[in-house]
């Protein structure tokens, strides 16, 4: 086990940090809502779900992940606007941008702000309003997270680079289109159990609804037998960036997420069930063409090594994980890069159901970015929120069966591996 995990210098937090509350907006397409409205909704959800309440005046500082309100809605300098709309001025809030890993990074910044001893109570979160632009516009904005000089001019899009990664995996390992499809089916099965998910529905249900709609409209009813049959029909599941198809891609999503971090010494003032951030790692990577390997993200391996070293745990100890499945193949890569499975064993683990809710290594119980939705700047903290709920045993119908959950992990990737943040959480 853990052949892919190198060793990393063991860094330690200056003092322990705990998560004591979580808030999530609805995830979906909300025409009339802007960035600030989405974040207010997540913040209100946090306030409403604090076990022992919170006085907003007690929050001393904030870090909010946001990839590109500038390009998505023409609004820069988003952080003070959020401070104002939360009624938190003059509290300092800083926007953190690391593409799709923005809020994974924001959480780290908050952890370090408390660990430094400077603050005791810090708000961290993320937000993205993506649906104002047409798909081509969103494609351009997301592509700007790649190298504008040496990748984008080659025609590479965000799905395109992940498509090349998928092809490289298929060339080297036994990975197939069916494995990618199975990741999507699994994540939609989990998303169907998550009321906050953008796709709160299994792929089988989505297929049946399309059949019913065709029948209603007097059109020929497709004869799909099951989800795999549906996914293999190019009319239902067209190519986006071969070998990736529509249902391999996370959707375009509006949404926001936030958690409240406090110094562990005072965690019990807020809840009897804190969750501690025991490991955090972050690393930078080069563009895919300059990567050591085309089948693995070096930043993910390094960030994981840092987080495991800080937490003093191994991949084997992690009982539940939210990984960055912006595309279905990315989940398979992640489970290998994190050391859950040996290089090349990821596809077989999917076949064997090991990553399902009932498997020995449940991955993306929330539905993942694929079904829960991917408001890019909000996703890192949304992953942390799912893990927080799992560790507290309050994930409802999607609670993993393991009754002795101690350790969970989140893996948040920016761009196509330029940034990776791994956070490890332990039940208090």
């Amino acid at each position, binding site marked *: 086990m853990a052949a892919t995990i190198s060793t990393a210098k063991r860094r330690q937090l200056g003092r322990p940090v705990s998560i004591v509350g979580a808030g999530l907006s609805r995830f979906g397409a909300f025409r009339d809502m802007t960035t600030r409205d989405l974040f207010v909704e997540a913040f209100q959800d946090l306030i409403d779900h604090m076990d022992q309440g919170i006085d907003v005046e007690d929050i001393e500082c904030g870090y909010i992940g946001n990839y590109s309100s500038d390009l998505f809605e023409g609004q820069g300098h988003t952080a003070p606007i959020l401070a104002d709309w939360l009624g938190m001025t003059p509290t300092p809030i800083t926007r953190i941008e690391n593409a799709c890993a923005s809020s994974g990074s924001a959480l780290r910044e908050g952890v370090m702000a408390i660990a430094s001893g400077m603050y005791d109570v810090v708000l961290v979160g993320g937000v993205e309003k993506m649906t104002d632009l047409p798909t081509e516009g969103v494609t351009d904005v997301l592509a700007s997270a790649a190298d504008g000089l040496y990748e984008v001019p080659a*025609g590479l899009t965000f799905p395109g680079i992940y498509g090349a990664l998928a092809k490289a995996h298929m*060339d080297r390992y036994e990975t197939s289109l069916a494995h990618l499809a199975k990741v999507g089916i699994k994540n939609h099965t989990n998303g169907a159990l998550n009321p906050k998910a953008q796709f709160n529905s299994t792929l089988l249900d989505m297929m049946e609804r399309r059949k019913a709609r065709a029948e209603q409209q007097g059109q020929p009813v497709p004869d799909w037998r099951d989800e795999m049959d549906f996914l293999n029909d190019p009319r239902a599941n067209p190519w986006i960036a071969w070998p990736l198809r529509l249902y391999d891609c996370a959707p375009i999503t509006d949404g926001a997420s936030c958690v409240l971090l406090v110094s562990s010494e005072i965690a019990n003032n807020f809840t009897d069930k804190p969750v501690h951030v025991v490991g955090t790692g972050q690393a930078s990577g080069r563009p895919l063409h300059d990567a050591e390997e085309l089948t693995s993200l070096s930043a993910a391996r390094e960030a994981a090594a840092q987080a495991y070293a800080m937490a003093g745990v191994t991949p084997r100890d992690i009982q539940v994980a939210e990984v960055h499945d912006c595309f279905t193949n990315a989940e398979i890569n992640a489970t290998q890069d994190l050391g859950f499975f040996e290089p090349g064993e990821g596809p077989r683990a999917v076949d064997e159901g090991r990553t399902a809710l009932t498997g020995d290594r449940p991955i993306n119980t929330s539905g993942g970015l694929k079904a829960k939705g991917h408001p890019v700047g909000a996703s890192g903290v949304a992953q942390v929120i799912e893990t927080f709920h799992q560790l507290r045993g309050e994930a409802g119908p999607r609670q993993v069966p393991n009754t002795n959950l101690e350790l969970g992990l989140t893996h948040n990737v920016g761009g196509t591996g330029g940034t990776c943040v791994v956070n490890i959480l332990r039940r208090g």
Partner: protein
Amino acid sequence: MTTETRAFNAVSFFAYLKEGQLAGIRCRSCGKLSAEARPMCQACHSRDVEWFQFSGRGQLSAFTCISVVPNAMGEKGFGRNNPYCSGIVTLEEGPRISALILGVDAANPQNIATGMALTLDVRDMESDRPTLAFVPA
């Protein structure tokens, strides 16, 4: 050619490309080659770098065929019914670079083979930012 006077940056990279040359950087301290024009070696941090002209021959190491296209490629006529191929090219001198792959059947990617030999074929030579493209050798 007065190669030494050009600044080690993307403006020079694309100027070379416009002349039909794929030029990158060789580090005079450690020998590291980069297919991107940069003023400092990414391996040893040496500032003692020089231009290196690649042969333009290489092989296809990974690729994708893109059907949902960005605006810039849409303007060139690509789209849902006319996908294009982009890939990672491993140059014969070692470094890799991202490039447009032309002269292949992007609508039938199963006919495109990883490992195929490629050769440089710069397009849009009129533009300040010509497109780095390769075709089957």
